[in-house]
């Protein structure tokens, strides 16, 4: 790892001002991606600004039909939270299959979506549930937030403070886990909103990162059941292909994971 200067911020405002003073600063949340990337010397920020202990970025609130998870809440705390289990159990399940226990104690929802890894789990949940990303400057809908591989709508120095999820009628998530990295080889999050809209998002599949799957949404809108997806064809065009699976394999996984997610949705 190259030299860097570590700062611990005690408030969002302090973090923003520390960022502005650094020549090439980066925010550090749980560090489960940034630190490995720095160790590989793929990133060499002049300053690292730790958001991990900012109190206003911690915790979960359930208010009516809106579940709000603060940005620096760890996967473990999300997984264990009774409001999450009650309001959107699919999110609790998602965190239980994310990484391993030690990673779940450190990694955060804000860190996951800011990084927007094409195989990360949380981007699929945000997109399928029509979540809103709150930052220290504005609110951004999930539809506008994810801009492609490792790219988001965040501006330089902008800090995610929370994610708000409308509580759905039903939601489910299933993924084929890569056995070593535990990232999603392909994962699909399905949701039926309380107004009857169906939204489906796939991660680990597209070369452009997390994506909606309109063909499956239409099939589920007509008939919310795993068998409704039988006749859907997913094109392999633009899907990821690597040593772990071809684009055709992932196209099939999108269908199969969607079917499993519908079957487990509640």
């Amino acid at each position: 790892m190259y030299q860097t200067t570590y700062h611990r911020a005690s408030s969002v405002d302090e973090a923003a001002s520390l960022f502005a003073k650094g020549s090439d600063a980066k925010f550090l949340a749980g560090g489960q991606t940034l630190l490995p990337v720095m160790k590989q010397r793929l990133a060499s920020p002049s300053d690292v600004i730790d958001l991990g202990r900012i109190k206003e970025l911690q915790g979960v609130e359930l208010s009516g039909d809106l579940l709000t998870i603060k940005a620096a809440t760890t996967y473990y705390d999300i997984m264990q939270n009774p409001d999450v289990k009650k309001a959107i159990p699919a999110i609790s399940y998602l965190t239980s299959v994310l990484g391993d226990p030690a990673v779940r104690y450190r990694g955060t929802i804000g860190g996951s979506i800011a990084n927007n890894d094409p195989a990360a789990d949380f981007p699929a949940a945000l997109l399928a549930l029509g979540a809103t990303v709150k930052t220290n400057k504005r609110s951004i809908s999930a539809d506008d937030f994810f801009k492609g591989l490792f790219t988001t709508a965040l501006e330089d120095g902008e800090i995610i403070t929370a994610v708000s999820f409308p509580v759905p009628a039903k939601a489910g998530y299933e993924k084929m886990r890569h056995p070593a990295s535990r990232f999603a080889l392909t994962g699909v999050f399905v949701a039926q909103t309380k107004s009857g809209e169906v939204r489906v998002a796939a991660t680990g599949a597209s070369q452009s990162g997390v994506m909606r799957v309109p063909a499956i949404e239409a099939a589920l809108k007509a008939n919310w059941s795993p068998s409704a997806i039988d006749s859907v064809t997913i094109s392999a065009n633009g899907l990821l292909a690597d040593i772990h699976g071809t684009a055709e394999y992932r196209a099939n996984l999108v269908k199969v994971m969607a079917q499993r997610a519908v079957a487990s949705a509640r």
Partner: protein
Amino acid sequence: MSTVKLTVNGKAVAVDVEDRTLLVQLLRDHLNLTGTHVGCDTSQCGACVVHMDGKAVKSCTMLAGQADGASITTIEGIAKGDELHPMQAAFRDNHGLQCGYCTPGMIMSAIDIVHRHGGQLDEATVRQELEGNICRCTGYHNIVKAVLDAAGRMKVSQAAE
């Protein structure tokens, strides 16, 4: 350089380190606690697992500065004098190690698993929960046996306290 203040295995320490220092480097290179190992250095293998404020974390994927003020327990800090921790004793009795390289991380993760699950542990849960710890020798079978054995012993020793 920054001064990182920690409690390590019950002892307060203050260490001057470069800001880029990882927690595992502080433990091994500055405090000579070399029981905590670095295996993969990419947060996959779990050889570097220690407890921070009672939670099992990968010390190769944390800056020392992030642990400032925390209480760290390493493999050196779990036995009571000559009396092994029940997890250590169970690993020995069940032959849960061969080369031993992964063992410190296995044991620290396994203690965390027992703390979280208590009496609810079964073989499938142990196998799933150990996914962040890689062993190249044992095929995991005796490790799983050791964790289940220790879960029983830890319950007994907790009840006795």
